[in-house]
């Protein structure tokens, strides 16, 4: 579904990602893990068209999206839930969600999608007229994910969904991610919580200093000595 080949990404002209290749197949959950500042978020930005690779190639469902604009990428069925949620703080929850479906004009379809995300996060229906900034961290993360789903993506990019939320909610968020996958959405997950990220995924890539240092299934990596030492403190 997604194929990334030899991609280099720069931020303010400094290479952050040197040479990264990976793939995500239909129906998978793939995790990208690695310490802070290793460019994991940069990879997602490079996929969703916020920045463009200077070297390398990205294909999505057979189409070359290396230089495609963000709106074209959203239209193709990729949705990026960014690090730090990036809600529109002064707009209501409902407006945030509607903006997620910006490329759709069909109101019936938009309402259908709203029903779907309210089904996943019933609390958001109660909060729909509240400003997004008045919500708790966990609820804001729910809005961010729900907003990402409003474009009805085939591939959902999730950047640190556990960031800044209570541990009890982290489990709920991960349960939701499993549920979303069951509904047919493929997921690429960037996550600090390595244990959770490896538990939930089919396959994972370890990024170190802008390169893929290790790859394998979640179970393989959980059993790997280097992973246990560097990330799980075992």
């Amino acid at each position, binding site marked *: 579904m997604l194929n990334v080949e030899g991609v280099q990404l720069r931020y303010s002209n400094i290479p952050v990602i040197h040479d990264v290749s990976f793939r995500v197949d239909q129906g998978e959950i793939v995790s990208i893990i690695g310490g802070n500042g290793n460019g994991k978020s940069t990879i997602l930005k490079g996929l*969703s*068209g*916020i920045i463009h690779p200077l070297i390398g190639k990205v294909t999505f469902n057979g189409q070359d999206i290396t230089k495609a*604009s*963000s*709106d074209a990428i*959203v*239209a193709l069925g990729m*949705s*990026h839930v*960014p690090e730090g949620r*990036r*809600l*529109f*703080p*002064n*707009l209501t929850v409902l*407006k945030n969600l*509607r*903006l*997620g479906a*910006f*490329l759709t*004009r069909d109101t019936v379809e938009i309402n259908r999608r709203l029903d779907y995300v309210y089904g996943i996060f019933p609390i958001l229906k109660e909060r729909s007229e509240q400003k997004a900034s008045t919500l708790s961290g966990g609820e804001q993360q729910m809005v961010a994910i729900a*907003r990402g789903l409003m*474009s009805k993506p085939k591939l959902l990019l999730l950047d640190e969904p556990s960031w800044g939320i209570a541990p009890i909610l982290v489990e709920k968020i991960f349960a939701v991610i499993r549920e979303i996958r069951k509904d047919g959405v493929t997921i690429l997950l960037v996550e600090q919580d390595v244990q959770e990220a490896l538990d939930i995924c089919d396959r994972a890539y370890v990024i170190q200093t802008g390169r893929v240092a290790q790859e394998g299934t979640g179970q393989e990596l959980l059993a790997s000595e280097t992973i246990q030492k560097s990330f799980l403190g075992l």
Partner: protein
Amino acid sequence: MEGLFIQTLVSGLLIGFLYALIAVGLTMIFGMMDIVNFAHGDYLMVAMYFSFWCFALFGMDPLYSLPAVTLLLFGLGILTYYLLIKPIINAPMLSQIFVTFGVLIFLRGLATFLWKVDYRMIPQTVLSGNIHLGDVYIGIPQLTAAAGAIICNGLVLWFLKKTRLGMALEAVAEDKEAARLMGINSDRMFALAWGIGIATVGVAGALLTSFYYVFPEVGANFGLIAFVVVALGGFGSVTGAFAAGIIVGLVEVLSGFLIGPQFKFMFVLVLYLGVVFIRPQGLLGKK
């Protein structure tokens, strides 16, 4: 005396609505992309000349040429964005100031070159005349301008709050990058903001031509007042600009009435300084 006071209040209110309309585009463009359009008042001048020439050449009343003026200014706004603003959108603030200030000088210079510094006025329009309510006289052109300003501001607010594109404009204003992730093409939204922002001065200019002189420097004063209104209302706040426009209109006429007409703009500027010192974010501004 009392009648005169009420008369003053009414004229302050009427001009205040117009100030609000002139300021709304300025605040909208700033809120969207953090660019201060120093030439804002000069687009008003362009609109007024266009309105004037429609009358002088084709005998078209300013009220009837209003839709055409609005459309022309909408186009001019979009043209300005693509030609001048887009290239400097990520440039340092100083470059941005130079560009919009350059537009100001260019437009004034062009108007002076083409039409001389003469003051021009349309002697008789379909709106000429007064209505009286008790002791209070209200000029019909002023009343029409105020009503037009209320309607136009209402439309802008409705557009921003209730339509899909308006929502996208607000989203870009809140977080450009997040808006891109929603599939919103921020470039087109910026162009739209310039179109609407300049079209609103088009409406204001067309309404103003019915009762105000047209000359190359006419934008200077109105532009300055628009800045005071925007600062008072809060940079980027459309509703704030609306409230602030009325306040500035009232301050202007009341200080003119109570202290002396030669001081009225001084008090408007004192108000501006007061806002900058006491509440720099303005009445309804964020931060």
